[in-house]
């Protein structure tokens, strides 16, 4: 049954417009907005139970709000404004059902029955159902967050857009599309049945924590607006904890958020620089929130069951909060908690945190032993904290030269200026370096040679930059050995194609010869390059790829496009919105080799309009975030509406590889190149 009346996302704008109209009764509008934010979740939830369609329910609720905006300024705010809104909305829903199904007596009866049953009755369960629906896994993560803020938080599209640094239009469309998807997929307005509950609850928790982190880890943007996202997440979490009190993970998440939020004021220094946990002024921690966090943690324990990831993270936060000074921190306990967390969430970042805790508990060598098992993990190869932590342990062990190299490496990897300054300062303390040519200086001179063509220099540059990064540009050239070079290669390029490996190896040979030093590539065997390219992706893998449930719309579209057009990934990524001829399923881009035409089939054609979403110009495939000022691309690679940059080839390749790892029998993951050549 679909009772959808209109799919026009513009119908919500009437409210925003009305709120902005200058009126004498300005304070009445403020009051109405406040009432709405308190009541909207309950009203929408109750209406959804009646009409079984979230989108329609929200529109009916909005109608009631518009009625309030029309009537209250003249007639005054009613005695019980919440009940007034609820009654008005309910009346409209019943009218709607009657109007739509007049001929069917059955539905008259339904309407009658609904009139008998109070909307208030069971409304808590309705709100919980609404939460599960708006966080449903059929929706992409961004849409879940936006829809949840809209339906459960009562926020306008503009308020959500400001919080996520995107355009209001994009948010309105995202929400409209999400509601459409829920209707099309016939997502039921029910609590998930027992076996599904845990998984679905995880999805709700993920959305709330995503909203929280979007606010908590904001280092740029409108600083005043972002903390409000933390507040929204806290409110959603507290609400969920009341609605689903027997779920330990819900209380765990609330505890985690309350305690993290308690440190907000202490997290930044006077000039906005980040302050690490152990250096924070604990007097500035919000004791009220800490106590609330402790209380939530107690409820999590009472709910019982084996601790999940949120409860464990909350327990770590609790342990920190219990230490009156940084010195009093119980690092043994924290290390044990990280150990438990690593078993549930086997991520190298969690493992690194465990190393830090163990280093604090049992001395730097214990920490270093774990860190050294992580340095060969490709996932961490550009993670500055790994070098920072390793440098810290080395410095504590008195191995200052090695520590310096790590700090320099960490400094060159971080994008945060105050952090870089801090790391360079740490690198500068310790013993002074022996004089002599450094690796960085030699590399620089090597690349400045005039007898090499630009392409070769670019290629050699890649190799030497990685060497400088990993070994430290300040390391004396005399200390660079073939063994150290082999380690760099093993971490950076072991998984790369034979051709790539050999190219880097050739660069090192050339560099060694030029610098008149022992051949640094001595420990590196040349890899046989097979003539054949890697095989294309097989039909069963492709089918599995298309069915992947959690693929974001952008990736879905790009992958389909590459498969159907057989275009090179770089060409497809250079597409602009204005290059598309949607009707004729083709596009045209100008590459360095001249103009290239792409044409696609129905799969791409179905997806493209959703990706374009009302945009008229700029890059078709956009990066997730706005670029940092230091990495600002040219205007041709920026979306004029959202300010986000063009999705890079490297990122697209990485995402595809990650996503296809489970599908690839070799476990390595496929390349976009293979996808382009996969058409049957």
């Amino acid at each position, binding site marked *: 049954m679909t009772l959808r009346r209109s799919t026009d996302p513009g119908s919500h704008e009437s409210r925003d417009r009305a709120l902005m109209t200058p009126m004498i009764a300005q304070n009445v509008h*403020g009051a109405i*907005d*406040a009432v709405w*934010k*308190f009541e909207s979740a309950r009203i929408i939830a109750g209406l959804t139970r009646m009409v079984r369609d979230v989108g329609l329910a929200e529109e009916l609720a909005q109608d009631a709000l518009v009625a309030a905006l029309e009537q209250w300024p003249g007639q005054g705010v009613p005695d019980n404004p919440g009940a007034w809104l609820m009654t008005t909305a309910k009346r409209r829903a019943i009218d709607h059902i009657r109007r739509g199904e007049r001929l069917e007596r059955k539905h008259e009866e339904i309407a009658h029955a609904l009139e008998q049953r109070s909307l208030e009755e069971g409304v808590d369960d309705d709100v919980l159902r609404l939460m599960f629906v708006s966080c449903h896994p059929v929706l992409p993560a961004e849409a879940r967050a936006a829809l949840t803020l809209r339906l459960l938080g009562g926020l306008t599209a503009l308020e959500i857009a400001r919080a996520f640094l995107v355009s209001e239009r994009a948010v309105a469309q995202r929400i409209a599309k999400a509601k459409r998807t829920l209707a099309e997929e016939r997502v039921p307005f029910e609590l998930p049945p027992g076996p599904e509950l845990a998984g679905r609850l995880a999805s709700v928790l993920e959305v709330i924590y995503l909203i929280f982190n979007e606010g908590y880890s904001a280092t740029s943007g409108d600083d005043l607006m972002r903390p409000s996202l933390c*507040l929204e997440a806290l*409110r959603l*979490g*507290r609400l969920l904890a009341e609605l689903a009190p027997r779920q330990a993970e819900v209380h765990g998440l609330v505890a985690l958020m309350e305690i993290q939020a308690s440190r907000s004021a202490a997290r930044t220094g006077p000039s906005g620089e980040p302050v690490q946990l152990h250096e924070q002024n604990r007097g500035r921690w919000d004791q009220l929130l800490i106590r609330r966090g402790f209380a939530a943690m107690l409820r999590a324990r009472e709910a019982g069951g084996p601790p999940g990831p949120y409860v464990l993270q909350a327990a770590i936060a609790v342990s920190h909060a219990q230490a009156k000074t940084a010195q009093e921190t119980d690092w043994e306990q924290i290390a044990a908690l990280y150990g438990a967390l690593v078993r549930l969430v086997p991520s190298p970042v969690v493992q690194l945190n465990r190393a830090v805790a163990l280093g604090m508990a049992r001395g730097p060598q214990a920490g270093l032993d774990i860190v050294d098992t992580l340095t060969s993990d490709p996932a961490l190869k550009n993670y500055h904290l790994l070098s920072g932590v390793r440098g810290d342990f080395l410095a504590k062990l008195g191995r200052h030269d090695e520590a310096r190299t790590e700090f320099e490496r960490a400094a060159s990897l971080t994008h945060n200026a105050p952090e870089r300054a801090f790391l360079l300062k740490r690198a500068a303390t310790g013993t002074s370096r022996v004089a002599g040519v450094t690796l960085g200086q030699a590399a620089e001179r090597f690349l400045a040679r005039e007898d090499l063509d630009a392409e070769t220099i670019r290629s050699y540059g890649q190799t030497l930059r990685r060497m400088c990064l990993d070994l430290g540009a300040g390391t004396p050239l005399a200390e660079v050995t073939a063994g150290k070079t082999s380690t760099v290669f093993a971490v950076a390029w072991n998984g790369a194609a034979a051709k790539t490996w050999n190219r880097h190896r050739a660069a090192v040979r050339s560099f060694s010869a030029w610098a008149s030093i022992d051949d640094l590539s001595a420990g590196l065997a040349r890899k046989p390059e097979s003539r054949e390219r890697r095989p294309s992706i097989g039909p069963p893998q492709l089918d599995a790829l298309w069915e992947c449930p959690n693929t974001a719309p952008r990736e879905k579209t790009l992958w389909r496009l590459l498969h159907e057009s057989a275009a090179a990934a770089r060409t497809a990524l250079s597409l602009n919105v204005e290059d598309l001829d949607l009707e004729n399923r083709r596009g045209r881009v100008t590459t360095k080799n001249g103009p290239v035409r792409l044409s696609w089939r129905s799969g791409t054609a179905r997806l493209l309009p959703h990706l374009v979403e009302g945009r008229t110009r700029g890059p078709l495939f956009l990066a997730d975030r706005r670029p940092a000022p230091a990495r600002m691309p040219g205007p041709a690679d920026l979306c004029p509406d959202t300010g986000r940059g063009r999705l890079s080839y490297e990122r697209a390749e990485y995402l595809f590889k990650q996503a296809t790892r489970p599908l690839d029998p070799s476990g390595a993951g496929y390349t976009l190149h293979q996808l382009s050549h996969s058409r049957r």
Partner: protein
Amino acid sequence: MRFLMTSASEQAADETLYIEMGKFIEELTRSGVLLATGGMELEGSLIRSSGGEITVIDGPFTEAKEAAGGFALIETRSKEEALEVSRRFFKILGDGEGRIQQIFG
């Protein structure tokens, strides 16, 4: 935004008021708005520091009509929301007066 609401009502609390207020507090807690609340002595003591000298004057200071006092620390998105909370609060409490002050830090 955090606000401290203090209030003094002119009626002594009866059974109905306790029940109604209990429901209201439960609802506020549930929606994540209420951070802390409790009853409050009405007059208290006045402390004044002047020229390095501290004087403490015990109440009452006025001919008190009020019968019961309370406070609530709430967290809302806006002043309007805070006003809406206190509006509902006084609907239950009846006649009396209160104060809303935003809290910083």
